[in-house]
């Protein structure tokens, strides 16, 4: 058994994991990063449109600040988010974007004077201020009151990932590429690292660490139609779940992006609509204003996706040999704009559809895109039930997004979480020593070895690939955008059957080395458990909130359901997770529950909402017009939860620092 010792073990080489690693390394800790793929190939690279940070440089962002970003994010979450975390996030996001600028990200910049833009289908002239010239530009995204999304053409994630990955190389942090964590080593109270598999040689290696960070991204591949990369199978979530100690939060909260290209599901950015693109139906009619007169195409993603599917169900879809879809029309933006600001979109259209979006409409339909749920943590990023285990980014549920994430908030979250969680990981390593017996490490190593042996020569008869395809079909058909008791119950029952069958998987091949068939087999065993957390959580949540829509319970029910679902997997023999619930404290909310400004307006009030609203109104009145910082501090003090280095105010054109 080979053992690698390190202070901090980071599982996942995307933006969140890399940024955590940099933070811990700068604090003097030894860091080792495990990544399924070379880090620059992580799915972070696929974030196209941009990251939200309230810099307020462009004229359409004038007046933006942390408060506005906070309100947009909480409303977007349908009040499912942890408001302390939203505050920490919106406060740190401008610092993150500026740090990335210093690291070389070529953010698109403001040019002074007049420029043409498209807003609500109309060509307009915007005049940028002289004092904004050369500062980082922002574009419009859905569910936001201001233009807040900082961008690098439409290759934002790529540029960010390369800059951060190059900082990792500059910091001499080793990345063990093509290495997959298969289980977390723990003693029921503390996590001590992971057992990982070398995806080139097949060797199992024990990584022993003071602190272990799961930053493995999303789980889109639980679904058949997803924008996610093929590596986004949720194995990081699953190994936390398999500890039986760490819990997953809100796994039923799954986002569907309105504009996956049809039928491949490849993403085209929300920036298409943010920059003025329109959604059209089979008749060429722009239908979103009929449903959402205020925000139209730029309501939040959950709302737009639902409206699109509703419109298709009403018989208004365009028909093709692959089925029904709608159209995304960006032709009105013009060739120059598309070739400069939407060039990846143009490439994708050209290569995968054989069309030119300067002239042609793009066939789109909603596709699974993002997991709001994840490993439940404190705002520090540490698991609330397993010491020494941290999570950051999409794999985590510290809970920035609640039941719906705003576009541009995830790639921002990766780096912000990396900054904040990285500091708390370093704090943890300052306070803790390695404290693990080699016997425990060996037990975990042997258990994983035995699980693999069982798959390779246990004589099983089930086909892993078939189980996976069935799971993906169930999730897309029964646990999708519209949910209902009967199909959900059927999904849960069928997944139980698949979980049982997955214990009897056999392989057809026995090639030494990586053995791709073995990889599918051990992953599908874990993915099924995760899929069941999504399906069962969705069945039990008898309300509609954000992206979780129940046709049989169409109202948001704050009275019963203003709570987070916690899923844990107690025994290996179980076929269902054990669910419990964690109440959100309305009396601590800076923004008490209300209407989002788009979507349905039919929520059932929580009894504390009116009480809290009166308190908030009184505090606002007492504070008057002066000092938004003082008011904010009275409403929800959060700064002490941030690392000291990130507590300072953010400079803006209209809020200069002395």
């Amino acid at each position, binding site marked *: 058994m080979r053992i690698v010792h390190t202070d901090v073990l980071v599982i996942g080489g995307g933006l969140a994991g890399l940024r955590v690693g940099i933070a811990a390394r700068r604090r003097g800790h030894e860091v080792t990063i495990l990544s399924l*793929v*070379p880090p*620059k*190939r*992580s799915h972070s*690279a*696929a974030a196209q449109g941009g990251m939200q940070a309230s810099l307020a440089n462009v004229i359409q962002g004038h007046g933006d600040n942390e408060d506005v970003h906070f309100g947009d994010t909480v409303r977007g979450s349908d009040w499912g988010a942890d408001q302390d975390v939203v505050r920490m996030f919106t406060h740190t996001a401008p610092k*993150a974007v*500026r*740090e990335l*600028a*210093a690291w*070389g990200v*070529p*953010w*698109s*910049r403001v*040019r002074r004077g007049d420029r043409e833009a498209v807003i609500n289908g109309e060509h307009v002239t915007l005049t940028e201020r002289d004092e904004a010239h*050369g*500062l980082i530009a922002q574009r419009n995204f859905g569910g936001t009151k201001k233009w807040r999304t900082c961008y690098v053409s439409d*290759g934002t994630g*790529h*540029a960010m990932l390369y*800059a951060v990955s*190059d900082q990792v*190389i500059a910091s001499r942090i080793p*990345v063990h590429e093509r290495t997959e964590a298969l289980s977390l080593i723990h003693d029921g109270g503390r996590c001590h690292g992971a057992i990982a598999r070398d995806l080139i040689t097949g060797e199992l290696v024990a990584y022993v660490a003071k602190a272990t960070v799961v930053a493995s991204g999303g789980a889109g591949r639980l679904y058949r139609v997803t924008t996610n*990369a*093929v590596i986004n199978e949720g194995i990081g979530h699953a190994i936390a779940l398999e500890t039986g100690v760490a819990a997953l939060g809100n796994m039923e909260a799954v986002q569907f992006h309105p504009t996956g290209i*049809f*039928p*491949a599901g*490849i993403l085209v950015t929300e920036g298409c609509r943010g920059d003025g693109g329109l959604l059209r139906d089979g008749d*060429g009619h722009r239908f979103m204003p009929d449903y959402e007169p205020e925000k139209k195409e730029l309501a939040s993603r959950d709302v737009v996706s639902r409206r699109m599917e509703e419109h298709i169900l009403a018989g208004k879809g*365009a*028909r*093709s*040999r*692959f089925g029904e879809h709608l159209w995304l029309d960006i032709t009105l933006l013009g060739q120059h704009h598309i070739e400069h600001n939407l060039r*990846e979109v143009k*490439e*994708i259209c050209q290569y*995968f*559809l*054989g069309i030119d979006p300067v002239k042609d409409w*793009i*066939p789109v339909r909603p596709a699974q895109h993002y997991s709001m749920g994840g490993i439940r943590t404190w705002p520090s990023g540490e698991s609330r039930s397993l010491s020494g285990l941290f999570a950051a980014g999409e794999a985590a549920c510290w809970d920035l997004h609640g039941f719906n994430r705003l576009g541009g908030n995830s790639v921002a979250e990766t780096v912000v979480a990396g900054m904040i969680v990285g500091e708390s990981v370093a704090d943890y390593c300052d306070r803790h020593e390695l404290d693990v017996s080699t016997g425990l490490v060996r037990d975990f190593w042997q258990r994983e070895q035995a699980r693999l042996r069982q798959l390779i020569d246990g004589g099983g008869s089930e086909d892993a690939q078939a189980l996976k395809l069935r799971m993906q079909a169930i999730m897309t058909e029964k646990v999708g955008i519209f949910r209902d008791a009967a199909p959900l119950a059927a999904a849960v029952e069928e997944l139980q059957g698949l979980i049982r069958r997955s214990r009897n998987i056999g*392989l057809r*091949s026995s*090639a*030494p*080395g*990586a053995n*791709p*068939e073995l990889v*599918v087999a051990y992953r599908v065993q874990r993915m099924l458990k995760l899929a069941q957390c999504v399906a069962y959580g969705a069945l039990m949540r008898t309300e509609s909130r954000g992206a979780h829509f129940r046709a049989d319970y169409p109202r948001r029910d704050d009275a019963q359901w203003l709570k987070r679902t916690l899923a844990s997997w107690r025994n290996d023999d179980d076929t269902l997770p054990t669910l419990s619930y964690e109440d959100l404290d309305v009396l601590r909310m800076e923004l008490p529950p209300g209407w989002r400004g788009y979507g349905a307006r039919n929520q059932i009030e929580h009894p504390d909402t009116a009480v809290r609203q009166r308190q908030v109104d009184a505090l606002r009145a007492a504070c008057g017009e002066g000092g938004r910082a003082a008011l904010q501090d009275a409403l929800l003090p959060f700064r002490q939860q941030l690392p000291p*280095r990130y507590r300072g*105010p953010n*400079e*803006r054109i209209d809020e200069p620092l002395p």
Partner: protein
Amino acid sequence: MNDAAADMPAETQPPRRLRISVLRYNPAEPERAPRLQTYELEEADGMTLFIALNEIREIQDPSLQFDFVCRAGICGSCAMVINGRPGLACRTLTTQLPTKIALAPLPVFELIGDLSVNTGKWMRAMSERVETWVHAQETAQGADLDRAEARMEPEQAEAIYELDRCIECGCCVAACGTARMREDFVGAVAINKLARFRLDPRDLRDDGDFYELIGDDDGVFGCMTLLGCDDVCPKDLPLMTQLAYMRRKMAAAGWRGADGAAATPD
């Protein structure tokens, strides 16, 4: 306006039979010699090599090794030699190819198995060697993150991004005559990166510093100007221009004495 690909009329032709030959070798099984293995499958609508190879692995041969991540042409994982030419498999539609398709792993890079090569290891070594990060003034706390960002001209940001779009897929290295002969050649990927950092006002390195990194035959002077790199770059990076430009700048730096032979006072 809206008669896009998805609205094409129903197929009248029967689907084509594709014959995909893969150059196979698993270093973990050295006793089995490298060999060509041919798989037959029926072409489907919108089929890419991503779809075709996965279908082969799922149905015909679970041991076949290849790499895909984003399957959208942006991550650079799936570069391979497709009918003799390096390219991204995920965005290659089979309709653009004849029915006989030959696939081989990228040369130059360490072979992991079949079509999978270790571009990641090569690229990390390249990054360490030519230091592909912004060399800014070092401060204890890094930049002051509370303050507004330093300004940059919009055109300058766009020019940097133009070169920053490299996805490290390895096609340029695989298509490079020099890289095939000279094991330590840095490749167009590295030279383009240094051109990118040279453009970036945040990077304080000067031509003398860059000369130290690529001012020799394993660097920009090793290039034979065959320009296979420029032909195959899937992101259409202006590699030919950057190579010529960097060679001229490095020649000037050498002439000025950046190699220490005749240092000038500035």
